[in-house]
């Protein structure tokens, strides 16, 4: 089912079973630097697909993978850990298992990230509570590529149910077949 977006108070705890579209849209509009922990240089892996798509959408994506530290991935230097990154990181995207998410969340808090984002199949409620206590926003069991595609409507070209209802013109980006997720 889709969502009819209403004015949503944000001072109450987030349910991690179901997110409002406005919450996800806010995160993707407000934060443009993503550290992707578990980014794979293998071009058939989902993390590679997600990194490439998010870079196309204007995000700066910093790959983190200790097994490939120092190499380049999509022209970005791979870091060994979050704490090695000297630049500002806003979103920490976790392409690791639920158990590993706790240590990565602790690092995300330590480097001053604003959002901890766990991929589809990754959920760690303890880590989420820790991050929220430190003032970070948390998304679990979601993919930022799919969410961007869903909220922009791009993913609907593949017949996917975006679960949205829209009475506004979609916002076009440059070139053909590129859409923004709107305000």
């Amino acid at each position, binding site marked *: 089912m889709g*969502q009819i977006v209403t004015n949503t108070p944000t001072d109450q705890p987030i349910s991690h079973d179901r997110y409002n579209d406005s919450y996800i849209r806010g995160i993707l509009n407000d934060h443009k630097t993503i550290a992707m922990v578990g980014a794979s240089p293998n071009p058939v892996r989902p993390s590679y697909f997600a990194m490439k798509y998010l870079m196309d959408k204007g995000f700066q994506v910093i790959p983190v993978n200790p097994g490939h530290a120092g190499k380049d991935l999509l022209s970005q230097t791979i870091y060994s850990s979050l704490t090695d990154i000297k630049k500002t990181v806003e979103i920490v995207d976790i392409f690791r298992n639920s158990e590993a998410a706790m240590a990565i969340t602790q690092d995300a808090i330590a480097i001053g990230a604003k959002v901890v984002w766990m991929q589809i199949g990754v959920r760690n409620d303890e880590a989420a509570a820790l991050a929220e206590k430190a003032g970070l926003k948390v998304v679990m069991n979601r993919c930022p590529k799919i969410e961007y595609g869903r909220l922009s409507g791009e993913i609907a070209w593949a017949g996917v149910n975006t679960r949205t209802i829209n009475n506004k013109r979609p916002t076009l980006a440059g070139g053909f*077949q590129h859409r923004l997720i709107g305000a």
Partner: protein
Amino acid sequence: MTQDREPGFDTLAVHAGAAPDPATGARATPIYQTAAYVFDNVDHAAALFNLETFGNIYTRIMNPTEAVLEERVAALEGGTAGLAVASGHAAQYVTFHTLMSPGDEFIAARQLYGGSINQFNQSFKKSDWRVVWADADDPSSFEAAVTDKTKAIFIESLANPGGVVTDIEAIGKIAKSAGVPLIVDNTLATPYLCRPIEHGADIIIHSLTKFLGGHGTSLGGILIDCGTFDWLASGRFPTLSEPCESYHGIRMAETFGDFGFAIAARVLALRDLGPCISPFNAFLLLTGIETLSLRMRRHCDNALAVAQWLEGHDKIAWVNYAGLEGSRYRELAKKYCPKGAGAVFTFGLKGGFDAGVKLVESVQIFSHLANIGDTKSLIIHPASTTHRQLTDEQRAAAGAGDDVVRLSIGIEDKDDIIGDLEQAFAQL
């Protein structure tokens, strides 16, 4: 945080998948009558061909008008994604092409649309896919038919030619314990009357030509991925779980997750087999879907009134409509189709074959043709038309004996529908 409100079924029927056109502001969904789509540059083309980004390449594989139709039906069924194709038959072929390998088997209910029985018995044999028949009235017959080659179970929710309601949940449990997807053809019920996903379906198929489109204008079919089957954990469906040679070794179910089946069916089966729907048909079907609830309520009200009237007529031997209190399917109908038992059903004429022929030639409002799910009331005498090449025994087994007449009740005034049958019966 308060949750955003979930839109209801009728709102989805009007809005899901559609938005004002970004270039022109057109509010109706435009008919994108184009074969192909311009790329920004070589990198953009490569990303599209590699499935790394979302977008349109060629209308055999995808089209923006068709995409609205796909999302609309997926939303009404509660699925993750849809794939619209040229017909219901094409939807079935594309579905099985994605699931099956040569030598594989699937179990199907005997109580199916005759065209599906032909497709499964005859054409599928050429791909070495073997159908094993079971009895929709006896779920344990599905369990007994499971072998290590079984790859799917196929049923109709409301079975054509009508009157039969399938116990989806019982058969769904058998599919689950066999580790295979349950495929439900929901054409006769539509998601307005029955939502198979709530009873264990993994894949839903429609002939859009029937009640969803609703006006008898346009052929179309669709498959809906319910997102409920774990192809990677199963490992028995190589098209979904093994590296795909034509896309550099990606695994469809890994890359596309809970809508991986719909994507695999699109970028492999539809790409290579080619039974795409036309954008114009997609547009007409979409327009029909906007009034699905209004029409189905009327179809069901009229069908019940006609069935009740027939039941009391002295030239009628029997009426097989699950909406009647005396139907053996009444309890199943209350569970699976509480808002109505559909509008397609059969009845028996005491006068047999000759009375059937006379009836279809005497009606003045009913149209004598081989289709169902039109706004117009339709009638056919299977023994003298669709099933005439069969022996008497085969006809009886198919529920198309000499005395059988099938009706698809339209949305005309019910007094006129009944009046037309009354004047025709007077001539028998």
